[in-house]
């Protein structure tokens, strides 16, 4: 009898433990989902910018998904790069304006023709390649699609896909 009771208690214990574990896992999943970005946040992810009015060697900063977007029309003597967006005869450097080290916004120095991040001293050239300091990779290029002289950010066009496949951005 005593053994029997023990057996029934063990069963009750295991059943309770099993259901508790199941419920616990479910609760953890719910908690994880509650921390996810909201659908409204995810949906508001497209921005269109017009490149026709850009001036050479003047940095324009646009906003996409809350992040600053660098738009720099290159001068003729700046080195062309595979990361440039070419529209007609103009070359543009477009990138997410956050240092790839820890996400500060680098400043553009038009005279020295480079970006300088004040946080940890990282530097990038006019094609977004890191040339000094801790940044491990070039400035990232946002997904874009060319529509005439306009650029839709958030949508991956064939030009962006090509850069992505070539490993020029992440």
């Amino acid at each position: 009898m005593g053994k029997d009771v023990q057996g029934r208690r063990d069963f009750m214990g295991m059943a309770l433990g099993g259901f508790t574990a199941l419920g616990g896992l479910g609760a953890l999943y719910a908690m994880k989902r509650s921390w996810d970005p909201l659908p409204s946040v995810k949906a508001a992810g497209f921005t269109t910018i017009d490149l026709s009015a850009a001036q050479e060697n003047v940095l324009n900063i646009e906003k996409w998904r809350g992040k600053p977007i660098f738009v720099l029309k290159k001068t003729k003597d700046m080195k062309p790069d595979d990361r440039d967006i070419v529209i007609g005869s103009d070359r543009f450097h477009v990138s997410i304006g956050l240092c790839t080290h820890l996400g500060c916004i680098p400043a553009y120095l038009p005279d020295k023709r480079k970006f300088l991040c004040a946080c940890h001293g990282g530097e990038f050239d006019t094609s977004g390649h890191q040339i000094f300091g801790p940044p491990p990779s070039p400035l990232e290029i946002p997904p874009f699609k060319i529509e005439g002289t306009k650029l839709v950010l958030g949508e991956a066009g064939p030009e962006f896909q090509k850069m992505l496949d070539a490993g020029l951005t992440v």
Partner: protein
Amino acid sequence: MAKFEKANSVNEWLDQRLAVETLKRVLSTEYWIPKDINFLWAMGMVLAATFGVLLISGIFLLMYYKPDANLAFDSVNYVIMSEVGYGWLWRHIHGVGASVVFLIIYIHMFTGIYYGSYKKGRELIWLSGMLLFVAFSAEAFSGYMLPWGQMSYWAGMVITNLFSGGSLEAYGLVEWIRGDYVPGDAFLTRFFMLHVLLIPLVIIGLIVLHFGSLRIPHVNNQEGAEIDFEEAAELYKAGKKKESKVIPFNPVFLSKDVFVMGVYFILFFYLVFYHFNFAMDPVNFDPADGLMTPAHIYPEWYFLWSYEILRPFPKDPGLIAFGIAQAALFFLPFIDRSPNVAPAHKRGLFFVWFWVLIVDMIVLTVLGKLPPEGIFNTLGTVAAVIFLLLGPALIVITKFEKKL
């Protein structure tokens, strides 16, 4: 139902139902503290009192603060500072308290290191204390987000980016932590929750554990001497207070604590009333702007040393060094191989090690505030490397330490 006699006083009535007399004896009047200590032993109660002051000032700030990306800045800088009667007082107490509490935590930690108060039998005191340090750091960081100024936003940006793990590029994790692509409303409200509820609960739990872990090994003393607490307690209770090596926590030790607290709070409120600006970064009086990074981003002074370990290296090694630096102190009871429980000045090379550690952390702290240029870069690298080498050095030094 147990049998209850008629009580003759409120105390007796409570004692019958809650055993308050026993509790009082166990927790205070017969909790024994060694006599051979100095004012540094009061830092624990100074910390407890400061936590109390932070809690009370925080409650009043909570009455008017609005956790909303559009309203937060004004609710702090206009409503609390200009409209609420004495709102400025709570804010300055809270800001100064958050800064000063770290000064005392560091003194408390280095006292423990100097006197070997983390050794055999006292490991849990050290570990629970380190967990408290981590919890206080998280509390300070989450609180720093709430005024939603430029420094709040960019500190939030930089610190959450650490979770991308360098070349692992775990941006999904970063966006999950933020609840957005960049720090925004979801970010602010969840850090508000952490700051006012979850982390304070964890801190309170850890304080209980920290106190509890002291109970059996007892507080260390200036010589690291082993004391027969039961024998010493009997002597004290028999009236031989001079001969006994211990005093009761309450009222004897506590009266000393209260004196040190008195001195401390004079300094504390001097800062609150006349020098609160050191805890109020001027850059944070600009509202958060995701399209403009401030010229220099630096954390509050108490995080500068670890920030400086992150800075001089390339991204991945920097993150690894940073991770090691955060976790290294946890292992102190296990990498100190010497059995000696003694003050550092009796432990030969350990004494040198201790002061190199202190000086190196001060150097890192100073460099963390300076711009990352020229000679400062070199010095920063040297100081960071020295910090990382101090761990292996301790193993070697303590391995060959003479037994006292």
